[in-house]
């Protein structure tokens, strides 16, 4: 019996250190090294360029944190891109008339409110999150278009733009601060709190969670609200960075965010995920965009190569999980 025991012990050790968990880090490293060598004369390795990658991916990273919670609970949020635009416009319009504080409240509030609507429909009306957020994605894309009649709104409040995207503190750009702080808090909540454990249990086995006394509807409501709020924050970051808001903001981000989260080791069906993995996944997406442009590829070639790399990464990270 003891020999059989050792056998399983070794097997389990092997499975704890399997490739899947580290694919995002290995992939990140491989792509980084590839670009570093190929583009050594093209400015890829400059501090400016590398920090650009982090700055450009900050909103995607923030959204990815929310999506890790949502997907870990076995749900999906397709509305994040639309929330970005609504939140950015709400903030921009409000700042113009009522000042910065009101603008922040309006932007974050819009995101949280839409998240609550998504969450309430999923948790209490018991509609599938895929359909609910597919519908609200379209709905709020329409709202963002009608808010200002397709016009873009400038954000001239310099404290706001500095705080949310253009400024820096202690020599570090504010977008990097936001990324670091959001990842730290997200990771702590996800890994070290009851709430995080309950999110994972809900996505893993909702019935088991429920009979263990976890309020599954509350968890579903909470994760979609968090996702909405973080998408709202991403909207503020875009508005701060661009010093303007427009309905197109965030429109193309959904697929990037989903890819970053899945490549980062979060299961589409819930029960397992990683905040740090999502950060690395997001940086990997940004690095791919950056490096492929710097390689001088045509736009169509960039899209093909990026698609193939993401496909490979997703295939490797999912292969082991499906057993």
């Amino acid at each position, binding site marked *: 019996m003891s020999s059989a025991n050792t056998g399983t012990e070794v097997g389990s050790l092997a499975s704890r250190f399997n490739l899947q968990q580290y694919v995002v880090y290995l992939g990140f490293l491989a792509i980084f090294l590839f670009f570093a060598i190929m583009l050594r004369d093209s400015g890829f390795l400059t501090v400016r360029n590398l920090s650009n990658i982090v700055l450009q991916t900050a909103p995607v990273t923030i959204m990815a944190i929310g999506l890790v919670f949502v997907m870990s609970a076995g749900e999906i949020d397709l509305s994040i891109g639309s929330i970005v635009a609504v939140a950015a416009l709400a903030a921009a319009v409000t700042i113009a008339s009522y000042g910065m504080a009101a603008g922040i409240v309006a932007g974050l509030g819009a995101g949280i409110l839409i998240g609550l609507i998504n969450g309430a429909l999923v948790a209490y009306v018991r509609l599938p999150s895929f359909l609910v957020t597919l519908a609200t994605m379209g709905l709020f894309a329409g709202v963002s278009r009608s808010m200002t009649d397709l016009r873009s709104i400038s954000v001239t409040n310099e404290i706001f733009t500095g705080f949310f995207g253009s400024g820096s503190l202690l020599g570090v750009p504010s977008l990097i601060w936001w990324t670091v702080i959001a990842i730290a808090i997200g990771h702590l909540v996800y890994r070290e709190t009851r709430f995080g454990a309950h999110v994972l249990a809900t996505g893993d086995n909702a019935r088991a969670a429920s009979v263990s006394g976890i309020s599954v509807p509350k968890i579903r409501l909470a994760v979609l609200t968090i996702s909405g709020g973080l998408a709202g924050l991403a909207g503020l970051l875009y508005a701060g960075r661009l010093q303007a808001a427009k309905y197109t903001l965030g429109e*193309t981000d959904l697929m990037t965010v989903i890819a970053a989260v899945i490549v980062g080791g979060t299961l589409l069906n819930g029960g397992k995920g990683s905040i740090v993995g999502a950060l690395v996944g997001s940086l990997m997406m940004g690095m791919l965009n950056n490096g492929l442009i710097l390689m001088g590829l045509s736009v169509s070639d960039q899209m093909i190569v990026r698609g193939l790399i993401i496909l490979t990464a997703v295939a490797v990270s999912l292969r082991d999980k499906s057993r």
Partner: protein
Amino acid sequence: MRKALSIMTVLASLFAAHAFAAQGVTTGPNGEKPVPAASLTLTAAQEQQVKDGKFTAALVWHEMSEYTNAVNAGARDEFKRLGVEVVAQTDAGFDAARQKADVETVMAKKPSIILSLPVDPATAASVYDPARQAGVKLGFVDNCPAGYKQGTDYVTIVSDDLFQMGNKAGIAMAEALGKKGKVGYIFHDADFYVTNQRDGAFKKTIEQDYPDMKIAAEAGMADPARSEDIAQAMITQHPDLDGIYVTWAEPALSVLSALRAAGNKHTKIVTLDLNEPAALDMVKGGNIAALVADEAYSIGVTLARASAGSLVGLKAEPFYAVDSIAVTKETVKEGWKKSLNKDVPATIADAMK
């Protein structure tokens, strides 16, 4: 006496209106006077200077379409001719935030020139500032960032001759209808100076130059997705329309499908931009009578030339306009070549056999 006077006035105004063909000029986004693109040339010495400079360029597009492809091809060909290396090309997917990221990214390559079409001119200053501050020569298609000064902040803007496009659409419509009949007018109902100028020029041309033609129905289209409903309503209310002008080709296809659904074969359509399904209908003798196209390829050539020239001291005009051509069944082959610098698609070539 009074009556006589008023008759005189009417006569006078009629005379005035018909004395000359419709006059109008395309103006740039800031009211710039257009200069024909063909007038821009580099001297042999300037060209040699550019070649010796070993300059580089990045192409930061707003999105990729057949039109952008043609502009892109023109720019690349001209840069190649001048020995300027294109080091990067990007597509922002109509997203201003992405365009900003694209500018930042290509800056790592330290290009001498960036050619771009700003996604959102009103807020584009923050997008292009990193490049402007680094002294990169900026050349724009159609529009420039608000607050930028030509000559110091950017080289030039190259665009279509918008008035000419609308005007040529009006002439093509008149030719198709034998200079008489009732015309429907579907315009772009949005504050967008490109479509506004083209639509206005069409209307002005019909009203001023063709007394026997009448714009009998007008409809504004704000959302291209609703163009079929608009066409449907127009055809139902005015089944006797001889022709319909549509602001650009995509919605024109919706109008075409509405006409087909109604079994209408006599109403002619004139629209702007080359588009394969529309051209196919045209060569097959369908409702489409003419497609007015800009010389998108020339936009790229002109912009590349002006920007490269500016590196060796050339002072570019603020606003260049390229010519446009009315493509009909007979001229579809040449039109394709001239506008997009490409051979006509095989489907159309086959249909013409």
